[in-house]
């Protein structure tokens, strides 16, 4: 390959040809001989007792192989476990059964499963299952659920409180007592539906001879899926193989193991034939986790000069009807630690109440807790700027952690690794010509044109993370990663990672790392992921950890390979090991460049092992088990510029500039792509998306006709700019970029709209900022003030 440096080069994504030409192997592409199909009957009610459940008509239907109910699996499948148990949080973990035993607690809760010889027969048979429900009172909103007299979901969680978790630093009470200015805001982080392009599913195959279960599964983390499946099914972990080769997006929704996965495994073993279950899109809307859903009461204390002195947060996190696998960790550790953002706020306190409601369980969605934190602090900074009549840029600069302060220990006790917040802000301001925009805004307002400029200066925690920290946070697993680099006799290499890229492009970036390190052409490197039989262990892809943690493991394994190859080269070239020079795949002797062996020569000699040095084992394969010493802290500045049509409430995004610093960059094009996707989802939250339940607990935005996942025509051109501040915590200086887009963008858009509507006295808007909501906010403001700012000529 002509590229002399792979690292830092926009190599085209190697996985894309198969992904975009229909040649990928998604779970639904798996077809096994004799395979049967499962469909799940889901509760049409949000809260009800099952008084009669008669499956006899369905069972008699030709082609139906089995019908299972909660009673059939009781004692055979354990309840779904919760895998994040924050300490000192009083967490209640009510049983979450794969099929309800007697009570359903959300619309979509499993009632029965049908297995048939075709998917059509299975779905038709669902209509033949007779169920009588006795409806129970329903509560879907968290502050209503904790109120006195609310319907109770679980006996062992009085007041529907799943947990109360606290975090703080400094002396927040004194800060508020001494504050010269306090701003307060109630913020609602609406519920979002992740909507990965591929719905979830499983194909399970039971091998009765070996007593082994193979599960093809839409998982971001197949080894965790293996672990959890073992706990639920009772099949030993070493008798389960999970394969998740191509996964069509996840955004966190494919971290958990779900009831449907376990029912498929159960059916395959019971029937001794392969069983496939793949969600329909409608099913995905109600049966796959949702994200966000906070109600927050926030107070910010400051001095009149703009110095922020304290932050107090109370948050009610809607967790849905049961605890999804990582649910308790998202609104606690992943949220509470980051509420002070990129500012030196010495005193803060966070109280989080996790609440059960009659809704789909809520868990990690791209950014998971950190978007909720970044939105909160960036929104509050703008509100403080309004209160103090300061430019939001100046207010931010005044409170930034200075670039000389790194590593910086925040009041949360997290240690921020590296950063230069003024630098990214400067670049963003320059890109939009901030001063000119402010002038245009002032002029426009006189003519009834409403231009808004929204800033988001964010920092996030990612690269999850040190395993000791995982344990301290109550995460029931580790966060290290293994990697193996194996160079075959022909000079072709296999790279094994325990992470599981599902669209992010690491089949390319990981090959770039190894290619750079060993001087191998990228075409000669295969990245293997998503199969527990091939890869020893792994904690998966989420938390922007894949490259920072998995990539670090790979480079350290690759360096071991190079070291061994170098020693073997010295032996074969009859030179001293310290005299070997390595450059782009050639090991030569210092001073005599013609005396050289290529990495391919060495690979052959290592694999045949005819002439190994004393004490060197044959083969050219090394592994590394990498546990990071700290998290990483990507940062940046996003600016959104909007024009608001005050007549219709429509928001038009004129410019979107994203300046992101995710440490050193392996593939700039892939990093841009991650920013684009994340910003699109963040704009989605700001303007379009929102799951709405009616009073009876029906999800009324339960299809693509009602729930707006923005498409390309609804997303502006995203201008990406990068700075590269290396992280000192890992060998490549990487930080991670998978989640920055959602973490940074939503507040930039809301800040822009609030800024545009400031002449109406509007300073906060709830999301999604649909045209009607914007229009009503304006109309209400007009009525309250009794005055009307300039409107466009009619």
């Amino acid at each position, binding site marked *: 390959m002509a590229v002399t440096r792979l690292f830092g080069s926009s190599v085209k994504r190697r996985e894309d040809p198969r992904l975009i030409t229909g040649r990928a192997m998604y779970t639904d592409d798996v077809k096994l001989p004799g395979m049967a199909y499962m469909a799940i009957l889901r509760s049409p009610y949000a809260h009800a007792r099952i008084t009669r459940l008669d499956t006899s008509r369905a069972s008699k239907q030709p082609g139906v192989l089995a019908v299972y109910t909660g009673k059939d699996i009781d004692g055979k499948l354990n309840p779904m476990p919760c895998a994040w148990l924050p300490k000192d949080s009083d967490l209640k973990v009510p049983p979450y059964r794969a099929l309800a035993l007697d009570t359903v607690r959300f619309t979509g809760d499993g009632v029965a499963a049908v297995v048939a010889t075709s*998917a*059509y027969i299975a779905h038709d048979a669902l209509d033949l299952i007779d169920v009588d429900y006795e409806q129970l009172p329903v509560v879907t909103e968290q502050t209503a659920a904790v109120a006195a007299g609310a319907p109770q979901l679980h006996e062992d969680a009085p007041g529907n409180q799943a947990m109360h978790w606290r975090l703080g630093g400094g002396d927040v009470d004194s800060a508020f007592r001494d504050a010269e200015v306090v701003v307060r805001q109630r913020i609602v982080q609406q519920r979002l539906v992740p909507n990965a392009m591929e719905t979830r599913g499983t194909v399970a195959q039971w091998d009765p001879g070996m007593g082994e279960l193979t599960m093809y599964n839409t998982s971001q983390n197949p080894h965790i899926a293996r672990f959890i499946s073992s706990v639920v099914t009772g099949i030993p972990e070493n008798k389960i193989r999970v394969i998740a080769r191509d996964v069509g997006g996840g955004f966190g929704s494919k971290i958990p193991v779900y009831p449907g996965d376990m029912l498929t495994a159960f059916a395959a073993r019971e029937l001794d034939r392969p069983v496939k279950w793949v969600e329909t899109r*409608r099913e995905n809307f109600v049966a796959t986790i949702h994200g966000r859903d906070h109600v927050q009461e926030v107070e910010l204390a400051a001095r009149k000069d703009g110095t922020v002195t304290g932050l107090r947060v109370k948050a009610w996190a809607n967790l849905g009807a049961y605890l999804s696998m990582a649910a308790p960790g998202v609104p606690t550790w992943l949220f509470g630690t980051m509420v002070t953002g990129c500012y030196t706020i010495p005193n803060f306190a966070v109280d989080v109440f996790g609440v059960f409601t009659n809704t789909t369980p809520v868990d990690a969605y791209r950014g998971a807790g950190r978007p909720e934190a970044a939105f909160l602090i960036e929104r509050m900074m703008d509100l403080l700027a309004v209160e103090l009549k300061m430019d939001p840029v100046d207010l931010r600069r005044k409170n930034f952690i200075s670039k000389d302060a790194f590593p910086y220990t925040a009041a949360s006790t997290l240690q921020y690794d590296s950063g230069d917040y003024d630098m990214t802000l400067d670049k963003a301001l320059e890109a939009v010509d901030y001063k000119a925009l402010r002038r245009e805004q002032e002029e426009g307002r006189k003519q009834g044109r409403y231009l808004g400029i929204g800033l988001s200066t964010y920092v996030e925690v990612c690269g999850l993370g040190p395993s000791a920290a995982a344990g301290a946070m109550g995460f029931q697993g580790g966060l290290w990663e293994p990697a193996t680099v194996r160079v075959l006799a022909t000079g072709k290499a296999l790279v094994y990672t325990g992470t599981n890229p599902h669209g992010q492009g690491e089949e390319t970036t990981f090959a770039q790392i190894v290619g750079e390190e060993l001087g191998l052409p990228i075409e000669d490197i295969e990245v293997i992921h998503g199969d527990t039989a091939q890869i020893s262990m792994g904690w998966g892809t989420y938390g922007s950890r894949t490259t920072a943690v998995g990539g670090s493991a790979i480079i350290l394994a690759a360096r071991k390979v190079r070291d061994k190859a170098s020693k073997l080269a010295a032996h074969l070239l009859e030179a001293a090991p310290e005299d070997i020079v390595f450059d782009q795949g050639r090991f030569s002797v210092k001073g005599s460049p013609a005396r050289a062996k290529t990495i391919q020569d060495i690979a052959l000699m290592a694999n045949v092992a005819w002439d190994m040095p004393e004490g060197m084992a044959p083969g050219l394969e090394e592994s590394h088990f990498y546990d990071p010493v700290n998290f990483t802290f990507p940062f940046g500045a996003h600016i959104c510029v909007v024009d608001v049509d005050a007549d*219709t409430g429509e928001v038009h995004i004129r410019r979107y500039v994203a300046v992101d610093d995710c440490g050193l960059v392996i593939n700039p094009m892939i990093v841009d792509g991650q920013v684009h996707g994340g910003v699109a989802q963040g704009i989605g939250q700001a303007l379009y998306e929102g799951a709405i339940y009616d009073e009876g607990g029906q999800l009324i*935005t339960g299809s693509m006709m*009602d*729930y707006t996942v923005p498409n390309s025509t609804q997303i502006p051109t995203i201008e990406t700019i990068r700075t590269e501040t290396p992280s000192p915590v890992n060998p490549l200086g990487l930080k991670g970029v998978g989640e920055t887009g959602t973490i940074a963008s939503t507040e930039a858009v809301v800040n822009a709209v609030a800024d545009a509507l400031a002449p109406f006295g509007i300073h906060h808007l709830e999301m999604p900022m649909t045209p009607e909501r914007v229009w009503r906010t304006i109309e209400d403001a007009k009525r309250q003030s009794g005055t009307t700012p300039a409107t466009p000529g*009619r």
Partner: protein
Amino acid sequence: MYPAEFDYHAPTALADALHLLQGHDGTVKVLAGGQSLLPLMKLRLADASTLVDIGRIAELRGIREDGDAVVIGATTTYRDILDSAVVGRRVPLLVDTVRQIGDMQVRSRGTIGGSLAHADPGGDLPATILAVDAQMTAAGSGGTRTIAARDFFTGMLTTSLNEGEVLTSVRLPALDQARTGSAYLKHRHPASGYAVVGVAAIVRLAADGTCQEARVGVTGAGSQAMRAGGVESALQGKALDDATLADAASHAAEGLDLLSDPYASAEFRGHLAQVLTRRALAAAVARARGGPGA
């Protein structure tokens, strides 16, 4: 998404289709482009035990000029309409409307007749069909008949087509006379692409520049598309300045049974009808005057 079992017929002659529509027990439905019916069947919200696919009946597809009108066969796709020079020249309002329907996939499969017969309150075409005073031709076992656009839409998802009748073509009077301008504007539902409110406006100016005739159709806002008579009469004979247009547009929602959903309340729909009517009229007037976009 798995529809319940159904029978499927794809006749190549209209007479066969009409025969099939008569001769079945259970629910028989006509399948044209399938862009509305099939999603409903997959969601099991529409039940059809038999589908009669009229897509292979050659005589139902195509565009032809007929004197002062353009006649479009019922199974003519949106794509065909956008590609037609005749429609572009003679009924530019239809092009303006059709290019805002759905997305490229929908426009490639969806048909003018299928959409009109389905009569979704959020469909775009009804506003335009009403504004141009189109005429529908329907065929049934008793022969063919013509239905005026005003009489065609009878309520939400209902038309004056009888059981067993098939809409065969739509006749649209041409709009290429002098001093005539038109425009279709919509507030698009961000997820479905349907018209939350859509307004089709046609303005014909007298020689002195006053309004000789205005015709306005409003879709999306109410349970069925309607002509905005109050707007039209408020413009008759008037000089068309901004204040007159705004005043006339304030009548846009009169008589509409306004719909409400989680995306847009009745009040907001009524408001949008007024704003879009004002803007559509302004665009139509500009085109009638030969200004930008004429």
